[in-house]
C-alpha cells in the first residue's frame, strides 16, 4: 500500500517534471537552434527513493554531490597532514595554506572572541568551495546552484549569529539597530532601515552564491550550445570564449566561497562586538 502510494507519487512527480520540461522547452523555443535547454542541468534526479513518514527523503543527485564534497574535503584534510612532515610536501602545504587562510580571516574579522567559531567557518568555507569546484566538472551537479541549499546555509548562519548576539548581550543586542551619534528625530526612521537591512542579510547571502553559480553554469551551457550549433566552421569562437570563461568560473568558485565565509565572519563580529 505504501509502495503503491510511493510509486504514484513518483509517477506524478515525473509527470510534473515532464510538464515543466515541456514548458521550459516552449519557453526556450525562441532562444535559437543551438541552446538546448540550459536549465536541464539543474534538475534534481532521485537516485534512491526513500519515504520517511510521508516526507520524500529520497537520495538525490544533490545529496550524492554533497556527500562527495564532504568526503573530498575530509579526505583532503585528514590524509594530507597525516604524515606530519616538518617541511610539508605539496598536499600538506595546500591543507596548511587553507587552514592558515581561514584562520587569518577569522582572526582579522572577528578577533579573539571568534576563535571558537573557527571550526564552523572552516567547514563552511571548505564545503562551499568543494561544492562550487565539483560543479566545474563536466556533467556533474552543482549543489550550491540551488537556492534551497544556499538559503539553508544562510538561514542557519543568520539564526545562529542572532542567537549568539542575544546570548552574549541579552536584550541589549537590540542596540545594534540604533546607530550612535544621530539626532533623535531620525532615530525611528533609521531603526526601521537598520532592521530591514539586517533581515535582508540571509537573503543577500544566499542569493549572491546561488545567482553566481546558476548564472555561470547557464552561461557555460548556452555557449556550449552555440559551439554545437555553429559547427566546425564557426564553432571555434564560442569555444575559445568557453575556455576563458571556465577559467573565470573557477576563480568565481573560489571568490564566492571566500565572500560567503568573510561575510559570515563580519556578521559574527557585529553580533559579538556591537560597534556599528
Amino acid at each position, binding site marked *: 500500500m505504501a509502495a503503491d502510494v510511493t510509486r504514484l507519487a513518483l509517477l506524478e512527480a515525473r509527470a510534473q517534471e515532464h510538464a515543466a520540461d515541456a514548458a*521550459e522547452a516552449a*519557453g526556450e523555443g*525562441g532562444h535559437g537552434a543551438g541552446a538546448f535547454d540550459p*536549465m536541464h542541468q539543474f534538475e534534481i534526479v532521485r537516485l534512491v527513493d526513500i519515504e520517511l513518514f510521508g516526507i520524500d527523503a529520497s537520495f538525490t543527485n544533490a545529496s550524492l554531490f554533497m556527500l562527495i564534497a564532504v568526503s573530498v574535503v575530509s579526505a583532503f584534510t585528514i590524509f594530507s597532514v597525516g604524515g606530519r612532515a616538518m617541511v610539508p610536501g605539496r598536499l600538506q602545504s595546500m591543507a596548511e595554506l587553507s587552514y592558515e587562510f581561514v584562520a587569518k*580571516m577569522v582572526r582579522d574579522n572577528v578577533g579573539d572572541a571568534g576563535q571558537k567559531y573557527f571550526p564552523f567557518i572552516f567547514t563552511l568555507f571548505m564545503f562551499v568551495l568543494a561544492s562550487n569546484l565539483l560543479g566545474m566538472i563536466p556533467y556533474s551537479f552543482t549543489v550550491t546552484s540551488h537556492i534551497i541549499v544556499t538559503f539553508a546555509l544562510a538561514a542557519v548562519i543568520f539564526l545562529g549569529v542572532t542567537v549568539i548576539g542575544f546570548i552574549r548581550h541579552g536584550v541589549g543586542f537590540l542596540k545594534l539597530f540604533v546607530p550612535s551619534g544621530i539626532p533623535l528625530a531620525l532615530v525611528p526612521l533609521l531603526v526601521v532601515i537598520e532592521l530591514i537591512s539586517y533581515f535582508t542579510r540571509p537573503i*543577500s547571502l544566499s*542569493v*549572491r552564491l*546561488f*545567482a*553566481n553559480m*546558476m*548564472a555561470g553554469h547557464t552561461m557555460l551551457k548556452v555557449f556550449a550550445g552555440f559551439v554545437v550549433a555553429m559547427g566546425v566552421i564557426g564553432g571555434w569562437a564560442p569555444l575559445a570564449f568557453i575556455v576563458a570563461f571556465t577559467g573565470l568560473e573557477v576563480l568565481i568558485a573560489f*571568490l*564566492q566561497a*571566500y*565572500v560567503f565565509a*568573510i*561575510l559570515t565572519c563580519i556578521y559574527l563580529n557585529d553580533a559579538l562586538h556591537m560597534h556599528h
Partner: protein
Amino acid sequence: MEPEAAKLIGAGLASIALAGAGVGIGHIFGNYLAGALRNPAAAPAQFPNLLLGFALAEATGLFGLVVALILLFVI
C-alpha cells in the same frame, strides 16, 4: 498582451539591472588601481577588501538577473 510575451519583456527589462553591476565593479577596480599606482606598497593589504567589494557589487546586479530568471522559468 499574452502572458508569455509579458514574461519575456519583463525578463529583458529586469536584465537592465546588470548595467549597475558593470558600473559598480568598474568603479571599485578603477579606484583600487588608482590607489595601487599611487601607493604600491599598501595595495596587497587592501586586496581582500577589493574582492569583497567586487562580490557585493556583483551580487546587487545578480539580484536583477534572478528576477529575470524567475520570470522566464518559474512563473
